[in-house]
């Protein structure tokens, strides 16, 4: 009975209530959740959702518990705190996963900064064939095909994926430092 009444003339949710709800939803989601999705489901203002998430993140921060709220790949996510990695790894009996090779990392860097970019363009910058690396990056879902270039042979173009953002802890591509920033290091 009570629920029905609530459904018909729902009293506006208080900020505290909203925090409670978004915490539950971000928890059940199996990947970072965009505040727009949350706003749609809850029929709330996107700004209110963002505010609730920010507040929740602050609360987690202040609590200094085992978990943190992260803004990643355009969404929100609950994850363990970095400092606890040793215990977590011991518990899960996992070892740090194999890292990308130097060649694959370089290829990924070129794709991240030059996307959409073709295989010949990557060769131009790296000075070496990158097919193996591109295959690896596709297999690991770090890059995706981004259509074909209107050039001779219509080569495939590549760009980074959402998984790239997640695996490298980026909110979006603009969070990458500018490639020109690396110039200072060169000389």
């Amino acid at each position: 009975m009570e629920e029905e009444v609530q459904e018909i003339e729902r009293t506006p949710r208080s900020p505290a209530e909203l925090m409670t709800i978004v915490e539950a939803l971000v928890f059940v989601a199996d990947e970072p959740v965009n505040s727009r999705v949350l706003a749609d489901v809850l029929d709330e203002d996107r700004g209110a959702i963002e505010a609730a998430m920010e507040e929740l993140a602050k609360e987690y921060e202040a609590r200094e518990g085992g978990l943190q709220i992260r803004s990643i790949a355009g969404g929100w996510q609950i994850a363990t705190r970095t400092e606890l990695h040793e215990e977590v790894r011991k518990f899960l009996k996992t070892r740090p996963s194999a890292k990308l090779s130097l060649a694959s990392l370089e290829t990924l860097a070129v794709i991240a900064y030059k996307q959409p970019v073709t295989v010949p363009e990557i060769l131009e910058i790296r000075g070496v064939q990158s097919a193996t690396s591109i295959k690896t990056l596709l297999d690991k879902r770090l890059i995706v095909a981004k259509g074909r270039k209107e050039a001779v042979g219509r080569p495939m173009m590549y760009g980074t994926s959402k998984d790239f953002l997640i695996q490298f802890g980026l909110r979006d591509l603009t969070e990458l430092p500018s490639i020109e920033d690396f110039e200072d290091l060169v000389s």
Partner: protein
Amino acid sequence: MIHLCDPFEINYKFTITNYEFKKVQETSEQYNFDFHRETAEIVRDGSEELKIKIGEFAGPLDLLLFLIKQEQANIFDIPIAKITQTYLEYIQMMKKLDIAVAADFLVMAATLIEIKSKMLLPRDPKAIGEDEEFDDPRQELVDRLMEYEKFKSAAGMLYERSTIEQAIFTRGPIESDENNAEVDASVFDLLTVFQKIAARHVDEIKMEIEREEISLADMIKSLKARIFEFGEINLLEFFEEMRSKRELVTAFVAVLEIVRTETVRLLQKTTFGDIVLKKV
């Protein structure tokens, strides 16, 4: 044969002294390395002795940058003769070790030799002056090196980020995830999946070819023989014996044909029960 085109993917590490070498490590697939600590090393000490750790250059530009740093040379004023010599020594070493030198490394060697020879050419007196720098045969290489090094640094940044990310864990699976046991897809997944189906299909076609196709006449003959032997046949069971779609169709047509031409009837003993082909 070891290919150097992607040295890290192979993760070879050699230590060479007096052109004798010892294979230190050989693993495939797995590569756990420290981006900063494990840079390649070429050590020249006094005598003719040359110590090299190879296999850790991501490409010719990487090797070249390394050699320039090794010589403590200014990237804007590369001692091209000396660098070319060391570069060629390195390539020689590869060949001695029976390592297939990737074409990209040889292309760079050719470029270096070309630049070196251009540097030896007497300069056009008219060009000396404000245009001098413009004509420097090394310029294009310097530009490429500078451009490449930015991305090499960016790769280092990505390495750092992934290291930090590896210390963060998301929640374990919960009940509601199971409703969502699905996969994300990209166009490459489409292609891979399609190739797999095609491969599967080729196997099946092969199997079908290996089997002898039963003609309609043969099918009718064997069906008749069975009906007259057993008096009746369960149609569902009969159809389930068919090994391909084509056989199934043949069997179906055979049944229709027999019902039309022979003294047999189709019977269904109970509603929704099995259909039986029975001799009248």
